[in-house]
């Protein structure tokens, strides 16, 4: 017991447990809040409920066998995970995907970025009490999932790519279906913006909430839309282009204040930019083989590489050490969600309880990737 004098006011510090089963934690994530009245004075994150030991599994599987596992980390953006993994192994093998495969990879990953952002938007708005946007975003996301399903039979854990190229040949009507989607989609984005961007309640809930400055982002190793909303135009598709991103014209949307509203604007704009990339790519899918010449049995030379890509949530990286055997010697995944989640404490500090769910939503993390 403390001997400090107590008044009724300073005696009511309350510890509130949120999760692991809580609708707005977006997965099994437990947050312990220390409250002073309505104000949050401290937080503690408890994770690991979905830990499956993906990195350990990676050491026990061959390079080709491990590829489907990566889809199960960030299951909202499985295509991006697969792209990062394939590019990493290709770098280790000094191989490159065929031109046709590269363009299709860009189309599918950008579609996946839109699908990921749509799920974020719907649930983020739902957290704020706006139910309608969720139905709308699910409707458009369904169109993207249909394209994935037609292409590879799976909607979420797609395993769309193989080391050296694509898993499948494109189906008849792929271009038309993608074209129809991107022709339609900008109008749908306008529709969401009519519902939200100028909405007084939406703005009041988002503006000035959960501010993370550029300097904080640097210290906390934060990447992705959260970093760009703080005004830093860092996007690996521009600075370290992969899979032919350098040939597409697109802008990097940035915010100014690094608050929740800016992160909303940045992600909305990113969806428009993704549409722009797909529009350019779908017109120029070259003919040719979908698989480069890579050995059937993959045994990269001894060495270690790191390959990072711009996934919807931030920088997704693979650090692979090869000992010239069939399995990777070490398979490290740099999960953007895990590392971005660390900044949660900083963002919540001093916020009100009601804002906590908005701040959790704006970070857009997926627990499957945080825990691996």
């Amino acid at each position, binding site marked *: 017991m403390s001997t400090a004098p107590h008044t009724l006011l300073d005696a009511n510090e309350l510890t509130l447990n949120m999760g692991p089963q809580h609708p707005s934690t977006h997965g099994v994530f437990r947050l312990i809040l220390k409250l002073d009245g309505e104000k949050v004075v401290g937080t503690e994150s408890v*994770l*690991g409920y979905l*830990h499956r*030991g993906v*990195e*350990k*599994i990676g050491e*026990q599987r061959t390079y080709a066998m491990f590829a489907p596992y990566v889809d199960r980390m960030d299951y909202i953006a499985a295509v991006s995970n697969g792209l990062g993994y394939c590019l990493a192994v290709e*770098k*280790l093998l*000094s191989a490159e995907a065929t031109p046709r495969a590269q363009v299709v990879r860009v189309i599918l990953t950008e579609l996946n970025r839109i699908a990921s952002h749509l799920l974020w938007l719907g649930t983020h708005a739902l957290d704020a009490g706006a139910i309608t946007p969720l139905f709308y975003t699910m409707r458009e996301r369904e169109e993207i999932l249909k394209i994935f399903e037609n292409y590879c039979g799976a909607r979420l854990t797609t395993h769309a790519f193989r080391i050296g190229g694509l898993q499948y040949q494109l189906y008849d009507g792929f271009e038309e279906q993608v074209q129809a989607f991107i022709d339609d989609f900008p109008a749908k984005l306008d529709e969401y913006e009519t519902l939200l961007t100028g909405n007084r309640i939406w703005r009041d809930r988002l503006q000035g909430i959960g501010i993370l400055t550029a300097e904080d982002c*640097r*210290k*906390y*190793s*934060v990447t992705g839309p959260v970093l760009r909303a703080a005004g*830093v*135009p*860092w996007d690996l598709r521009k*600075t*370290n282009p992969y899979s032919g991103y350098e040939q597409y014209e697109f802008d990097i949307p940035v915010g100014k204040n690094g608050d929740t509203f800016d992160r909303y604007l940045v992600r909305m704009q990113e969806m428009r930019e993704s549409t722009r990339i797909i529009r350019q790519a779908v017109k120029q899918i070259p003919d040719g083989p979908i698989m480069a010449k890579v050995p059937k049995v993959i045994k990269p*030379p*001894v*060495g*270690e*590489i*790191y390959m*990072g890509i711009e996934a919807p949530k931030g*920088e997704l*990286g693979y*650090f692979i*050490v090869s*000992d*010239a055997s069939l399995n990777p*010697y*070490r398979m*490290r995944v*740099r999960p953007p969600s*895990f*590392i971005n*989640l*660390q900044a949660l404490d*900083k963002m919540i500090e001093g916020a009100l309880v009601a804002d906590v769910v908005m701040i959790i939503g704006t970070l857009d993390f997926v627990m499957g990737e945080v*825990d*691996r």
Partner: protein
Amino acid sequence: MEEKPSIKPPVVMQAEPWHDEFVAGVQQHFEGAILDSASYLGDRFLLVTPSVVVDLARHLQVHGFDFLVDFTVVDYPKRESRFELVYILAKFGGSERLRIKTRIPDGAVIASLTPVYSGANWMEREVYDMFGIRFDGHPDLRRILLPDEWEGHPLRKEYGITQMDEKWVKSNLGIESGQ
């Protein structure tokens, strides 16, 4: 265990030496602490002694590499210094990257990077959780992904793929095995 059949291809990484003004500057600043500088498939790295890692990170923060991308460990049980610590640094907002590597034996304690990068906090906790490496000066060194009372460090090479802390599983989950 040491002898390998002689027909095998090279068993060391075919890295190219990397020498330029930048490396010379770092070498001059940290005399004798930079053991190697090389690049492999375009990824550059410095191999340094464990004692200078934090100072080097601080030095590089001022000289361009001011973003900690990732921190991880590779376990080589046959080596005398079995753990190879890998820090991946980048230029904030730029394309250049650099890795710092250092090697420590089992049981050695290394200085924490959290005073330089707050983001190193959870990365080091994960490394502690998975490899059992302790960090000096870490504000909150607990397990992060596994339960606090768990025995063993799964990413060490001697830890089996189906191995688990049977006592913990039995007493907390009431089952014989999670497999």
